[in-house]
């Protein structure tokens, strides 16, 4: 195995809850990926897509039903004591004793961690020094997340697992956390992150994978994942003009178009060529394209297309099989709206 540059190696991973057959549920179905040293890898997906179930296997909290996991060259479940001192973990939902203060909690955790940072340094990292004597039960949800992150960073880990690290944080705290994660990555920490926030993955990740129903449906760099989705041009035609008056759309590179009460949307993989053609036509005919808006695809569009809320959006090979799956997109779409 190539231990030299891959820090996390996952192949054919499966995780099943409950008994065999219909009564059980397979949350992770044949997942494979690798994360190189110093890389930030983001795992995306709707609620219930299997992200946390996958991450828990990487953290060594449970034994996979099938498949293999290697973290730093070791089995994180069977060789827990070889892996744990070198990793830091932030669970999606971890807890601290309600009646301890922030300092007491960090001190307890430091006592359980090899080569722990001083308490003050750990709290400074996440901007919690001002709350050091406050009881856990009096912290806000966002402050608890930051404390959790401080504990994950306490042992200066080589590999960091962050399960939805910024959920519940206000925008400023979220950006501070992103800066901190970028700094850690710059210092060489390998990071595996799950998130609901697509902008988080887009701005932080070197590589990402999108999960759906326990499988990875798309993976690559943010650019390649987004790049397979078309750019969009939107505008309205003046009264008396119709889509049919435009030059032949196929020649402009348009792969798809829609019209809704005079608002027109064109989709293209060649934004510059399509836009140039459109604008030259408009100048030629002296037509004003109202509310003209052109943009490349975002990760959000790619994600929505893949996850099934916008079945018509994606490229045929991934769009077709996913259309109309009726996935619960509420939380993701809602939070990112």
């Amino acid at each position, binding site marked *: 195995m190539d231990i030299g540059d891959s820090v996390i190696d996952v192949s054919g991973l499966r995780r099943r809850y409950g008994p065999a057959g219909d009564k059980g549920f397979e949350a992770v179905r044949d997942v494979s990926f690798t994360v190189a040293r110093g890389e930030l890898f983001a795992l995306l997906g709707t609620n219930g897509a299997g992200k946390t179930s996958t991450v828990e296997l990487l953290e060594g909290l449970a034994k996979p039903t099938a498949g293999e996991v290697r973290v730093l060259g070791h089995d994180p479940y069977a060789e827990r004591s070889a892996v744990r001192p070198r990793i830091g973990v932030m*669970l999606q939902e*971890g807890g*601290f004793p309600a009646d301890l203060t922030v300092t007491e909690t960090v001190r*307890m955790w430091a*006592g359980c961690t090899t080569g722990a940072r001083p308490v003050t340094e750990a709290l400074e990292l996440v901007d919690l020094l001002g709350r050091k004597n406050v009881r856990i039960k009096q912290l806000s949800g966002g402050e608890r997340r930051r404390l959790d992150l401080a504990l994950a960073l306490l042992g200066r880990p080589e590999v960091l697992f962050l399960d939805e690290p910024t959920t519940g944080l206000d925008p400023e705290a979220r950006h501070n956390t992103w800066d901190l994660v970028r700094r850690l990555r710059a210092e060489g920490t390998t990071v595996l992150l799950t998130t609901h926030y697509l902008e988080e993955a887009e701005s932080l990740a070197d590589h990402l994978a999108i999960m759906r129903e326990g499988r990875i449906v798309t993976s690559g760099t943010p650019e390649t994942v987004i790049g397979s989705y078309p750019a969009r041009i939107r505008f309205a035609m003046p009264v008396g003009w119709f889509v049919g008056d435009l030059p032949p759309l196929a020649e402009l590179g348009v792969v798809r178009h829609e019209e809704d009460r005079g608002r027109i949307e064109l989709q293209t993989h060649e934004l510059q060529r399509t836009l140039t053609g459109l604008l030259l036509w408009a100048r030629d005919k002296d037509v004003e394209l109202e509310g003209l808006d052109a943009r490349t695809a975002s990760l959000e569009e790619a994600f929505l297309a893949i996850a099934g809320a916008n079945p018509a959006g994606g490229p045929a090979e991934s769009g077709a099989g996913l259309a109309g799956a009726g996935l619960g997109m509420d939380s993701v779409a809602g939070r990112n709206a």
Partner: protein
Amino acid sequence: MAMAVSMSVPRMMALGRAEFTLLGRNKMALYVALLMPVMMVWAMRRAIGEIDLSKAGISANEVALTGAFGYILLFAVYQHLVSAYVARREELVLKRLRTGETSDAEILTGTALPAVAVALAQCALLVVAGVLWLDLRAVARPDLMAIGLLLGLAMSIALAAVTTSWAKTVQGSQLVTSPLMLISVAGSGLMVPLEAMPGPMADVCSVLPLTPVIQLVRGGWLGGMSAHEAGGAIITGIAWTIVASYGARRWFRWEPRR
């Protein structure tokens, strides 16, 4: 191995220290751990006075003070730890701790350290009080008493861990501990020495978990326990500790049931 131990002890001390702080801030837990054993002994001393102990050859004070070790194990260790483990489980503290370097056994042991310290302090006070003020003899066989107490501590911790699997909330933990508490008070010699029981009943009671512990403590303090009796009690005590530890490994839940 030495290295593993040298890492293990500081981790358990760190957990124990945090748990000690929490005990100090939890009035209900303090009440259970500190006052309940004293109140039970005081209440039972009067009841024991009514029992005919002539056949057992032991005074009411001797029964009450040696039986008090049982109340201490039941309230300060068993009852307290069931509540503590359930509270930490429901707060997701146990789940969070398991992501770190601390092993499962270290988490359970570290969390139990304050209870062990409180119980040892109470037992020491009990012996001092008994010898100085209540005319009990000095401890005859400290070795047997120590073995009994250590077995009792290990067994109570393991039984507490098993018991947590039936409790969903800290309040519920009061309920699930009651069967063992009642059986032990009635049948393990805390109130009525086995020697004062009818033969068949004494035979059944002799295999209850806390019975060998009380027998060893009583024999250790008052003397007169044969090597044969002591050996039998130690074997029964170890057997219960192993069964309870196995049960804890098998059934202990590290996170709330969803």
